[in-house]
């Protein structure tokens, strides 16, 4: 019987990996994917807890998280395309006009 | 009646704000009329005031923000009456005095002055701690703008320093006020900021010391007590004449008024305990201010440091916690307002003509402007506290009070009397006496009728208070008595051997 900690550890690992992705990579696309990764790890945690508490709530929450993730991807990609059209690059570090 | 005194100038400010900018003459007249109106009300108040009772008179108490326990409470007693009178006298003169010198943005100038007048009245009349704090801060804004917009070359720096220095100290007082409110709620079970209610509280000495320190810091910056005085010379050199007059005559008194009003009422143990420290700082202020002004080259800076010295006397009077000391400091607040206000107007007269405040640019002016020389002499003598002028009455009482508390205070204080003669006479001599050496002799024309009109009441007051100070002293006696009773210090034991 796989203990719940295993799943949760996997979820934490994935979350941290996602966070690393956001911090390290400079391409906006990769950063978005990393965020997706983080959100998925949350889903895993929710499912694990749902199973643990035998309450369906956890899984319903995952359903909503999926919805939100989908919308975020749409908005994110729309932003990328918009910036790409005026700047020919997707590198997040080029985006530093506003500072100080 | 007191609310009229506060509301009238503020309403006047609003009225002037509506007048179109071009009609400068009407603006100036309306401004003057409003402040004269305030003078009439103050005069009526002065007469209707009952000298016998030490209690608050004409008190009005109306809840303002009941949720926070803040009320609109105003009242006047012997202590604030003198200062209200001074405010009512100084403002019209300052306005009249600046008709010649303020030319651009006259409208905003008048609005700032009138709102300043309302705020100063409010500060002296407020009984509710938060209301007092509101007016205390409200004074800063117009004054800072007066300095920032109509001031000299480094006006912005001076305005900011003035504003932030005073405000930084007074916000600490705000926190102390809040703490008092909390203690009031806990000890008395009342949600109030009213001074007289909070005064009934018996605070443990430890807490009382801290709270008094916060209040004292805010007032000390305003007085200014040495070493918190460095904002004053900058503010004065950069402020326009009218600004300097108001700053010196009234704003500095808010500090000393604070000590007299809130010290004994709220901190009956902490005030006497810290009196020696206050006295020591006051004495340093007296001597330091006098010596430093002796080395000044700019007239206004010199008068600013002389104010530090004179206010040192007032603080010494308060720190002595004796009848004569307190009454002396009260009347000296009024005297300093008159004499230093007049001194600044005098510098204004010179500045309007030659646009220079450097002593080196003048010399032998007495020959060119004899009538001006007479006025300058009288004001200078009042400042030097010559008997027969108002300065002497105050200084004598203060030193007498200080002597009763500790002889050394009086001995050092009297040193200040000598030094004040040194630097003021030196300055007077550099400017007025000696061979004709002014840079622009042709511009130094005699004082005009309007300028004389400004000086006349001040000179009259100098002699009036000097020769017959009774009306002022009687009105403040009962209030001082009440203050001393609160400090449960018996009025100086009646000497046994009084022959008559």
């Amino acid at each position, binding site marked *: 019987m796989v203990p719940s900690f295993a799943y949760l550890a996997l979820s934490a690992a994935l979350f941290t990996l996602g966070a690393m992705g956001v911090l390290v990579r400079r391409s906006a696309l990769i950063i978005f994917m990393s965020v997706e990764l983080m959100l998925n790890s949350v889903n895993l945690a929710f499912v694990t807890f749902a199973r643990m508490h035998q309450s369906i709530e956890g899984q319903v929450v995952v359903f909503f998280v999926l919805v939100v993730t989908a919308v975020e991807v749409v908005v994110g990609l729309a932003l990328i395309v918009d910036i790409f059209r005026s700047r020919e690059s997707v590198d997040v570090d080029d985006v530093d006009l*506003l500072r100080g | 009646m007191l609310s009229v005194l506060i509301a009238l100038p503020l309403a006047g400010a609003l009225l002037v704000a509506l007048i179109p900018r071009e009609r400068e003459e009407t603006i100036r007249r309306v401004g003057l009329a409003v402040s004269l109106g305030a003078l009439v009300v103050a005069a009526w108040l002065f007469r209707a005031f009952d000298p016998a009772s030490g209690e608050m008179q004409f008190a009005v108490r109306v809840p303002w923000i009941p949720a926070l326990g803040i009320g609109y409470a105003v009242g006047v007693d012997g202590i604030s009456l003198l200062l209200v009178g001074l405010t009512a006298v100084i403002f019209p003169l300052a306005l009249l005095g600046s008709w010649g010198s303020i030319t651009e943005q006259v409208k905003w100038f008048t609005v700032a002055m009138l709102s300043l007048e309302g705020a100063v009245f409010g500060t002296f009349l407020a009984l509710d701690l938060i209301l007092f704090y509101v007016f205390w801060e409200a004074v800063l804004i117009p004054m800072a703008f007066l300095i920032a917009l109509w001031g000299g070359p480094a006006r912005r720096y001076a305005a900011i320093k003035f504003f932030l220095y005073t405000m930084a100290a007074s916000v600490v007082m705000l926190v102390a006020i809040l703490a008092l409110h909390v203690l009031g709620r806990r000890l008395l079970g009342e949600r109030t900021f009213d001074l007289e209610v909070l005064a009934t509280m018996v605070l443990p000495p430890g807490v009382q010391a801290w709270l008094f320190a916060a209040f004292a810091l805010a007032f000390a910056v305003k007085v200014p007590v040495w070493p918190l005085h460095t904002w004053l010379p900058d503010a004065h050199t950069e402020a326009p004449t009218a600004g300097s007059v108001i700053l010196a005559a009234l704003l500095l008194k808010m500090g000393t008024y604070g000590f007299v009003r809130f010290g004994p009422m709220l901190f009956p143990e902490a005030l006497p305990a810290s009196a020696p420290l206050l006295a020591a700082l006051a004495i340093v202020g007296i001597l330091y201010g006098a010596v430093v002004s002796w080395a000044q080259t700019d007239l206004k800076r010199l008068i600013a440091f002389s104010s530090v010295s004179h206010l040192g006397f007032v603080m010494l009077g308060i720190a002595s916690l004796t009848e004569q000391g307190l009454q002396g400091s009260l009347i000296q607040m009024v005297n300093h307002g008159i004499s230093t206000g007049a001194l600044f107007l005098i510098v204004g007269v010179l500045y309007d003509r030659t646009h220079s405040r450097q002593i080196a640019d003048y010399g032998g002016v007495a020959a060119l402007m004899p009538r001006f020389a007479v006025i300058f002499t009288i004001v200078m003598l009042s400042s030097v506290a010559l008997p027969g002028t108002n300065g002497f009455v105050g200084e004598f009482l203060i030193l*007498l009070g200080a*002597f009763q508390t500790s002889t050394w205070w009086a001995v050092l204080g009297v040193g200040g009397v000598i030094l004040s003669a040194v630097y003021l006479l030196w300055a007077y001599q550099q400017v007025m*006496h000696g*061979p004709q050496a002014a840079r622009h002799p042709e511009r130094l024309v005699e004082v005009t009728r309007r300028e004389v009109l400004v000086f006349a009441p001040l000179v009259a007051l100098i002699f009036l208070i000097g020769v017959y100070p009774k009306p002022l*002293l009687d009105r403040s006696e009962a209030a001082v008595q009440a203050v001393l009773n609160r400090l449960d210090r018996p009025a100086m034991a009646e*000497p046994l*051997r009084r022959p008559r």
Partner: protein
Amino acid sequence: MNDVVIRVGWPLMLVWPLVGWLANGLLGGRLPRTASGIIASGVAGASFATALLVASAYRGVAAADAAVSFPIPLFDWLGAGRLTVEASLLVDPLALVMALVVGGVGFLIHVYSIGYMADDPHPSRYFAYLNLFVFAMLLLVSAGNLLLLFVGWELVGLCSYLLIGYWFDRPAAAAAGRKAFVVNRIGDAAFLLGVFLLFVALGTLDILEIREGVATLSGAERRLAALLLFAGATGKSAQLPLHIWLPDAMEGPTPVSALIHAATMVTAGVFVIARLDRLFLTAPEALVVVAMVGALTAFFAATVALRQHDLKRVLAYSTISQLGYMFVGMGVAAPSAAIFHLVSHAFFKALLFLAAGSVMHAMHEVIDMRRLGGLARPLRQTAGGFVIGALALAGVPPFAGFFSKDLILEHAFAFGLRTGNYLPYALGLVTAAVTAVYITRAVLLTFSGPPAEPGARPHEAPPVMLWPMAALAVLSVTGGLLGASVAGAPLLRFLDGLLGLVESGAEAAPHPPAGLLLGLSVAAALAGMLVGWRAHRGRRDPVLGRVGVFLEQRWYIDALYDRAIVAPGHTLARWLAGPFDLGVIDGAVNLVGRGLGALGGQARRLQTGYARQYALGVLIGTVLILGYWMLRW
């Protein structure tokens, strides 16, 4: 009836000069030039007449010797808690004598000033100040309580400042005026402390009450109060160490020097000690100090006068010296004698000054004796007056000076007998001789021998100046009778009623050999004149080597003051104003301001603009919060 005359006359005496001051002050500009002089003199005369009236009325009321004090309350002036001060006047023998002297001499000098100030463009200002001075001096003399006395005390100081600096376009005059006011102020400060001490101890400032209450004071209090008041007196009466202002005060017009710096103001110090004689007489240690300071000052001033070149400065140091005598008189518990010397000194010193004034008037403002000489013939009356004054000063009988100075020396000797301290008497005697020397030198250098500058054609002073000098000359001659025992010493008897009480005790002490002392002082005077004659015949002025320079430099005291007090004062002021105030205190304040600005700059650098660094910031924040949180939870 007399009672009413006194009660009304005495305040009226004060009102006259006040009216004169207001008239000249306000209307001065518009009056014709001579009118202001006439008004001023008229007012002074009226005041003197009123004083005489009151004096005669007083004689009517008070029996010969019984001293009766008439307190005249005017109005309730000042009240603060327990302190209630009434503006009240006081009539008693001391006040009357002083009032008469001030009034009389004052009137004469007013008349003299009309002539002296004839060519001044707008003399109204001068006469206004002169009238104000007379009012102030009379107020000082007639005050009923110490506070009002102090008001008069500082007002005379003010008038001396205004009059010394009358020709303010001359920097020297303005500086002298300021110096006078400041030095006086130092004395006044001590005086004020004395007043405080008395008030705290006795609870009153009224002079009569103080006189009665003095007994209840403790020894230390009496001594301290007496010394403080005496310190005030040294300031006003230019005794050591606060004498430096009087010589410089000669910058003012000469009538001013005559009136203020010879006859009246400078004697205020002596008057105050006489006024509170009870206090002083019951504090013997303080009296000794008074006597010693008086004697020392007398000797010092006399020696310095030997080597002064400016005639008016010679007279100034002479005044300081004679004042020293008066203080010796006070110190040896002989107040009446001191007052008698005060009166006689007023006559002959005023005369000397007026004569000097007419010399300056004639020689177009030249007063340096080295440039004078041979004036005896052209200025016959002036020279005559000067010589009479000189003789009186030297103490040659029968002139006034001899009687008053000898009386003081007599009491000084009695004091020596009583206490064994003969120093006052010795110094007094030596000073008498030195006085004779320097006055003879002055006479010879100014009037005898060939004129130093033949070109100048001196013309005698106009009658309006000569008449007052003549009157003073008469007084200088006959003044001695007032106190001479042979004439029954009317003045002394009049004063003893008030001041003599304690003195009677001294009488019982061994009686000094009057005849011997008389001879000694006459011998001293004549010897001095002889030495003076031989040394300065034909206007010779031997330098007396290093001692002469030492004397000329006024014992280097002025230099000492400048280097020890004034110069360091300036440097301290400049250091405090500059590096300390601006640098340290203001520096600290600005530092706070700049510090916050710099911090702001740092916080702003945090905003790099790179989104990924912001994300790192978020993560760091998260780790910190979670870490802290879970530890506490």
